[in-house]
C-alpha cells in the first residue's frame, strides 16, 4: 500500500492531483461533453502522452528533444498500417488492378505488398512493433548521440533534422506510405467498426486508462533512485559522471522510455481519429508538443495534461473564430511561458494555488461553524 501511495502516486500532493485528473477526464468530461467534443478531447489526450514523455526527458533529464513527433508518428503509422491492411481486404479492393493491397499503392503502380508492410497483417505483431520499433529507433539515435556526449542544443537540432528526414521520406515515398495525405479511410479493428459511437466511447476510456497508467509509471521512475540521478544529470552532468555513473546509459534509457510513451499516444491517435498523416510527424507538431509540456509545467506529470488540453481547446476555439489571432497568441504564449512562467501552469498553481485552497478551506470552516452550516450538517446526518 505504501508502495502504491509513495511510489506510484507521489505522496499526498501527487495523489490528490492524480485523483482530480482522473475524476476530470474519466467522469466530468464524458458527462459534460457530446461525443464529437469528447472524441476531440480524446485526440488531445493522445498528445498528452508526448507531453508527459517530455516531462521525463526535458523537465527532469534536461534533454530537449524536438523530435517526439517522430515516435508519435511511428506509433501512429504502425497502427494505421494494420488498420489499412484490414480495410483493404481483396473483397473491399476488388476494383483495383491488384486487389488486396492498400489503395494508394495501387495508384502508384505497386503490384505487391512491400516487405515491411507484411508483419502488419497480424495484430499481435503490430502491437509489438508499436511498442518496440520506436524505442529501438530511439535507442539507435540515443546511443549514437549520448555515447559521444552530444547534448543540449545539438541534440535538439539533430532530433529536429531526423523529424524533417522522416517527414520528407513519408511524403516522397507515396507508394509505400500514402504520401502527404497519409493513411486514410481506416474502418475496422479486427472486424469491429472503429467509427461507431460505442467504439469512440470505448477508445476514449482506454486512452484515459493508458494515460493514467503512463503517469503512474513515470511517477514510479521519477521517485526511484533513477529519478534523482536524472535530476542530478540535468543539473551537473560532469559531477554525476565523475561519481562513477555512466551518464549516457541513463540518458539513453529515458529517451527510449519517452519514445515508447509517445508511440502509445500515436497509436491511440490513429484509433480515435481514424487516419495518420505526415503532418503529425514533422517539426511543427514536435515543437507544439514541447509547448504543451512548457505551458502545463515541464516538471509536472499531471500539469502537462491540462496544458495540452488548454492549448488544444484554445487552438480549436480560436481557429474557428479568429484564425489570424491564434498564431499571435500562441507565439506570445511561448514567449510568456519561457520568460515569466518557466514552470508553466503547475508552477503558477504551486505559487498561488494555496491562496485559493486556503480560502476554500476557510469557506468550509465557516460553513461548518456557522449556525446555518450546523443545521445543514444536522439535516444531512438525519437523512
Amino acid at each position, binding site marked *: 500500500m505504501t508502495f502504491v501511495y509513495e511510489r506510484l502516486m507521489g505522496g499526498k500532493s501527487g495523489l490528490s492531483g492524480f485523483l482530480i485528473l482522473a475524476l476530470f477526464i474519466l467522469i466530468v468530461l464524458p458527462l459534460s461533453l457530446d461525443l464529437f467534443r469528447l472524441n476531440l478531447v480524446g485526440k488531445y489526450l493522445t498528445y498528452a502522452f508526448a507531453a508527459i514523455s517530455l516531462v521525463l526527458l*526535458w523537465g527532469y533529464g534536461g534533454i*530537449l528533444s*524536438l523530435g517526439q513527433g517522430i515516435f508519435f508518428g511511428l506509433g501512429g503509422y504502425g497502427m494505421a498500417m494494420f488498420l489499412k491492411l484490414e480495410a483493404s481486404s481483396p473483397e473491399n479492393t476488388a476494383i483495383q488492378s491488384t486487389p488486396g493491397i492498400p489503395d494508394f499503392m495501387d495508384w502508384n503502380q505497386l503490384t505487391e505488398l512491400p516487405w515491411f508492410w507484411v508483419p502488419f497483417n497480424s495484430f499481435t505483431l503490430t502491437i509489438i512493433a508499436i511498442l518496440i520499433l520506436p524505442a529501438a529507433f530511439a535507442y539507435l539515435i540515443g546511443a*549514437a*548521440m549520448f555515447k*559521444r*556526449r*552530444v547534448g*543540449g*542544443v*545539438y541534440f*535538439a*537540432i*539533430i532530433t*529536429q*533534422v*531526423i523529424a*524533417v*528526414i522522416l517527414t*520528407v*521520406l513519408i*511524403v*516522397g515515398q507515396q507508394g509505400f506510405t500514402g504520401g502527404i495525405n497519409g493513411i486514410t479511410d481506416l474502418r475496422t479493428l479486427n472486424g469491429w467498426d472503429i467509427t461507431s459511437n460505442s467504439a469512440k466511447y470505448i477508445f476514449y476510456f482506454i486512452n484515459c486508462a493508458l494515460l493514467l497508467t503512463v503517469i503512474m509509471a513515470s511517477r514510479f521512475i521519477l521517485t526511484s533512485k533513477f529519478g534523482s540521478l536524472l535530476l542530478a544529470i540535468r543539473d551537473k552532468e560532469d559531477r554525476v559522471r565523475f561519481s562513477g555513473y555512466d551518464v549516457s546509459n541513463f540518458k539513453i534509457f529515458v529517451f527510449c522510455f519517452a519514445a515508447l510513451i509517445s508511440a502509445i499516444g500515436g497509436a491511440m491517435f490513429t484509433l480515435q481519429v481514424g487516419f495518420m498523416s505526415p503532418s503529425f510527424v514533422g*517539426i511543427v507538431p514536435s*515543437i507544439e508538443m*514541447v*509547448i504543451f509540456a*512548457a505551458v502545463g509545467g515541464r516538471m509536472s506529470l499531471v500539469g502537462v495534461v491540462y496544458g495540452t488540453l488548454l492549448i488544444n481547446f484554445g487552438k480549436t476555439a480560436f481557429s474557428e473564430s479568429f484564425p*489570424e489571432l491564434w*498564431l*499571435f497568441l*500562441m*507565439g*506570445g*504564449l*511561448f*514567449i510568456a*511561458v*519561457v*520568460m515569466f512562467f*518557466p514552470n508553466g501552469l503547475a508552477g503558477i498553481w504551486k505559487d498561488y494555488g494555496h491562496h485559493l485552497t486556503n480560502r476554500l478551506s476557510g469557506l468550509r470552516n465557516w460553513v461548518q461553524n456557522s449556525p446555518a452550516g450546523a443545521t445543514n450538517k444536522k439535516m444531512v446526518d438525519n437523512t
Partner: protein
Amino acid sequence: MDGYTYSELGSILAMQGFAGFSLFSVLLLMALGLAIIFGQMGVINMAHGEFMAVGAYTTYMLSTLTETYAPSLMPYYFFVAIVAAFLIAGLLGYIAEFVLIRHLYKRPLDTLLATWGLSLIMQQSFRSIFGAREVSPALPDWLLGSYQPTDTIDIPLNGMFVLGLTTVVTLGVYYLMFRSRWGLRVRATTQNRVMSGAVGINTTKVDRYTFALGCGIAGIAGAAFTTIASTGPTTGTLYIVDTFMVVVFGGAASLLGTILSAFTIAQAQSILEFFISGSMAKVYTLLALVLILMFKPEGLFASKIRR
C-alpha cells in the same frame, strides 16, 4: 549514364553545379548570420528564417514603391534594397535582443522556444500585412537573362549576382570578425565572458550588436533570395533546418567551416537532385549529415570555446 554524351553530361554537371552555387549562396548568407549568433553567443535563433523573410519583404516593398513613384530608378533600386534589408532586419534583431533574448542567455534551450514563439508572431505579421500569397519583386532588367559560354551551358545572371553578393558579404564578415577591433571584442566575449567584462569590454553591448548583425545578414540573405524564388509568410521555416545543419556541420564559430559546409551541402543536394527526385536528394543529404555528425559531433572545424 546512357542517353547522354560526355559533353552533354559535362554541361549538366556545370549547370547543376551552378544551381548548387545559387543554393550555396543563400544557405551561406543565412548560415553566416546564424553562425555569428549561434557560434559566438550560443543562442539558437529559430526566428532566423523570419529575419530573412523581413529582408525579402523589404526588397519587395522597395521594388513596388520604385515601380509606382520612380520607374526610371528601377535599375538601381536593388542596391538600396540590400542596404535597407540589412538595416531593417538588423534593427528588428536589435529590438528582439533587447526585449527577449538578453533575459535568456543562461538558458540556451529556452531561447530556442522563445525565438520559435517570435517566429510564429513574425509569420502571422507577414500574413496580415502582405497576404498569404507568395510575392516576388520586379527585378531590374540586368538581373534577368542568362550567360551562355557554350551552346549547351546556360547560366542565369541572377545566380551570378547572388554569388558575387555572397562573396562580398563573406569578405565583409571576415574583416569585421577577424580584422577589426569590434570583432576582437566579440571573439574575446565568446572565449571568456567574465574576463572580457573585467578588461573593460561592454559585453551586453557586444551581445546586442552581434545579434543585430546576425539578423541584418539574414536580411541581406532575404534580399538575395528574392532574385531566385518568391517569398511567402512561411519561406523562412523552409530554410531554417538546412541552415542549422550548415552551421552545426561546419562547426559553430568557424567561418571557414561554415563556408565549406554550405558548399558541400548545397552541391550534394543539387547534383543529387538531377539524378534522383528532389525529396530523396534532401533525405540522403540530411541523412549523410546526421551520420557524419554522429561520428564527429563537433562539426568539420571545431573551435575550442571555454564557457
